[in-house]
């Protein structure tokens, strides 16, 4: 019979096990739920251990009995025994019990972790009524937020695209500023020291919410939890956004290529809804390469949203060209984007000239090999890489995977 203590499961000390029901010896007492605490009132000072039996977890008399004994001044050990379930552990401790003795069968169904997590909650109205509300809130914040400079935002929308891809939106802090195409560190309030990962913001800088597009990495320390977010959950957002995929990092020219694979689509979903992009460029070509068709859905929707957008819709309809390809599933347009550039297929089918440094600018966001190969092709065409401090012909960012 395991003993559940605040430290976890323990074995019951052998000298505490052999007490017959309702018997009183010098130091140990067993009580059933209908015991009268008054009868013990005078003897409490002499007792080391009182064990209160719970015949059924639904019979809450033991809680009041414990409370009464403590009110009578009992300072010794108080043990609950029998059918108490892990969901009642915090109640038992609050009522004055020190530990709970449970059956092996219950311990199997409700292992140590269940009991530990039941206790984890520091929030209770009773504590607040006692005047400890603000210190509890401070504790919570400390627990969830590792350092200053983090916003706690609420999830407002979640959409799952495939088994491996989903997007979500969170409320935007009014003081949070970023440029379309930038990324920010986000995390979840699920650990003492939350894990943060960089995520491109998929919504434009003027939007009143923040959108993210994510892959679900099996056992990834963040996405493992993030993929389960639901509306109303809290997501932590670091205060500073940054990144090179911004229009300011490119020198002016005629045409902008946005070249993405997978979730590298995210920063471009933001940029294609930014009016500044359409002011700066006459034409915007967005390419997106994924293994299968259903992985292209998010990008397709983003283009649709841009073209329907009241702010940029008109410009997007005139200037934005979408060029999706699949690399595994058969479809009308197949193959990696590098292949389409090398063979000239991209330019032929869109009736555009090949890359040239005078007219073309580019942003690349995708897997490491794709970034590497595409960059080489751009450089071969005479384009030079730029940055925030020194704008150039193209900019690069790796799509963020844990």
């Amino acid at each position, binding site marked *: 019979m395991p003993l559940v203590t605040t430290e976890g499961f323990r074995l019951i000390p052998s000298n505490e096990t052999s007490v017959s029901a309702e018997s009183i010896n010098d130091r140990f007492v067993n009580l059933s739920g209908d015991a009268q605490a008054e009868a013990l009132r005078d003897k409490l000072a002499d007792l080391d251990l009182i064990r209160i039996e719970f015949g059924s*977890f*639904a*019979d*809450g*008399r033991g*809680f*009041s*009995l414990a*409370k*009464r004994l403590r*009110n*009578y*001044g009992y300072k010794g050990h108080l043990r609950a025994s029998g059918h108490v*379930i892990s*969901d*009642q552990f*915090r*109640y*038992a401790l*609050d*009522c004055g019990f020190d530990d709970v003795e449970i059956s092996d069968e219950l311990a199997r*169904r*409700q292992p140590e972790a*269940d009991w530990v*997590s*039941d206790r984890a*909650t520091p*929030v*209770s*109205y*009773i504590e*607040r*009524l*006692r*005047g400890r*509300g603000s210190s*509890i*809130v401070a504790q*919570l914040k400390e627990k969830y937020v590792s350092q200053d400079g983090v916003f706690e935002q*609420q999830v407002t929308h979640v959409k799952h695209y495939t088994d491996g891809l989903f997007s979500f939106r969170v409320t935007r802090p009014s003081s949070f500023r970023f440029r379309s195409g930038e990324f920010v560190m986000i995390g979840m309030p699920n650990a003492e020291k939350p894990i943060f990962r960089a995520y491109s913001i998929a919504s434009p800088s003027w939007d009143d919410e923040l959108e993210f597009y994510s892959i679900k990495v099996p056992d990834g320390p963040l996405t493992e939890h993030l993929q389960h977010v*639901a*509306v*109303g*959950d*809290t997501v932590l957002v670091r205060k500073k956004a940054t990144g090179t995929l911004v229009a300011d990092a490119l020198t002016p020219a005629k045409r902008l290529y946005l070249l993405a694979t997978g979730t590298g689509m995210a920063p471009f979903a933001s940029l294609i809804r930014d009016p500044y992009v359409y002011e700066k460029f006459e034409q915007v070509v967005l390419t997106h390469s994924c293994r299968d068709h259903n992985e292209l859905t998010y990008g397709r929707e983003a283009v649709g949203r841009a073209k329907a957008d009241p702010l940029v819709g008109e410009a997007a309809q005139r200037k934005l060209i979408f060029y999706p390809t699949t690399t595994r599933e058969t479809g009308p347009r197949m193959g990696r984007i590098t292949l389409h550039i090398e063979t000239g297929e991209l330019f032929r089918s869109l009736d555009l000239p090949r890359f040239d440094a005078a007219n073309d600018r580019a942003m690349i966001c995708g897997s490491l090999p794709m970034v590497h190969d595409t960059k080489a092709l751009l450089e071969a065409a005479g384009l030079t890489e730029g940055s925030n401090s020194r704008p150039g012909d193209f900019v690069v960012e790796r799509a963020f995977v844990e």
Partner: protein
Amino acid sequence: MYRYDEFDDALVRDRVQRFRGQVERRISGALTEDEFKPLRLQNGLYLQLHAYMLRVAIPYGTLNSRQMRQLAMIAERWDRGYGHFTTRQNIQFNWPKLTDTAAILDALADVGMHAIQTSGNCIRNVTADHFAGAAADEIEDPRPTAELLRQWSTDHPEFAFLPRKFKIAVTGSPNDRAVTKAHDIGLRMIRNEAEEPGYEVIVGGGLGRTPMVGKVVRAFLPKSDLLAYVEAILRVYNLEGRRDNKYKARIKILLHETGLEQFSAAVEREFDDLKAVQGGPSVAVDPQELARIEAYFSAPAFEVLDEADETFETALAADGTFRAWSKQNLAEHRQPGYAIATISLKAIGEVPGDATADQMRLIADISEQFGHDELRISHEQNIVLPHVRKRDLPAVFALLQTAGLATANLGLISDIIACPGMDYCALATARSIPIAQDIARHFADPTYAQTIGEMKIKISGCINACGHHHVAHIGILGLDRRGVENYQITLGGDHTETLAIGERAGPGFGAEEVVPAIQRLIDAYLTLRNGPKETFLMVYRRIGAEPFKKALYPDSGSTAPNPPAPSSDVISFSGTAG
């Protein structure tokens, strides 16, 4: 009204997360159904006849437009586009999926609402006068007390597994609109001779199988002793209340079997003990916390107006429909130029207490535009706009008319309370809603209803009396009599401060016989009354039950049609605990 801050939010979110885990553990087998059931019930989730049902608390019946809109959203997204407002200031969604419930609870938390302890053997949603903060007759707003009790009782470590459910109601007016004498604890806010504020504490009232009128256990309790005293009552009940028979497990039975004197003594002894122990009662409320709670309930910024309003008077004179609605559905507000308007959810032929998502949104819009963004749910299953300028009433009425919400029947024969009955409820022994619909349709003529005047018909579909039939002028109880739905009629009940339990009139009636039976009672009343000012209840109290029984059973004396059913004939299903 009370608004969640980050503490409340953290607490409710934690609870949702905990429940999400419990659902997962039920599915995985870590929790048995027996273990899971009390946990889901304490989060408002029942398993009913055809589906799960989620009961959401509307603490002391108060909510704002944003909350009402969220209820509409939930109804549409996870349910079937409507909700049912209950007799205990809750709303029920009738068709949620088990695996959607945590998401619904999260959506509730988004607007500062929850379903915590709307069911189970614990302290339930604390109810209060639905006219609180608005009524002309109010001594003190009961809502800060109700909110204090809500917080104190939420997730209370000691009182989550009581012998049976435990209901607390608070009123701040001498005219009791909160049915305090039919609650486990009823609190009436009063002043003592020194004009100090406090409570009259009433214990052991309740309807159900054994209806009882609550008894005064403490004639005057100083306000500051409230939580200690309630703790003492609950501890005595938790330890001494019967657990051998669920029908005898309520505190009213304990009080009845122990006797008032002895019960009061036990409570006082516990109370004294509590005050004697170091640190006092479990919760000595921090005065700042109390002040913080009270501050939420300060009155809205009322305009200084004349009592009479020209727009209102003109509309009254010009529009007979508006006049009828105003006469019936308005109540006196404490602020000149304002009125309390009640929106009837009893349109003829509709389900009492039901509102569609569209109706909820319209009501939300109206409250935001014309009602200081406040709404109340009454135990009579109607929705109250507590603060409306009289000047705005014609506009409000016109909007209500667009959505079938302008029925002018408050307090009249078609303003019927009905529990969900066997159309939804696993405990029901007969249907309630169709009976209510039949009666409302039969008495649909507004002139006739006016002639009959104040009439409270309340229908329960089983002995648990969620439809409050015991305290109806004419109460109807649906039973299962040898495999057929059968309806017993009670007479002369009263749900107000002069609470009275109705008297059973005699043998029950088949479903089709109910409307003719009610008609016979109404005919008798109209014949027997001394003019239109004498209500049904007044006549009943003047002349007693006999003339009405005679009307109900015209053939009796010669042939008793249906001998009263012995109780063993009444099959009661042991389903979900109520």
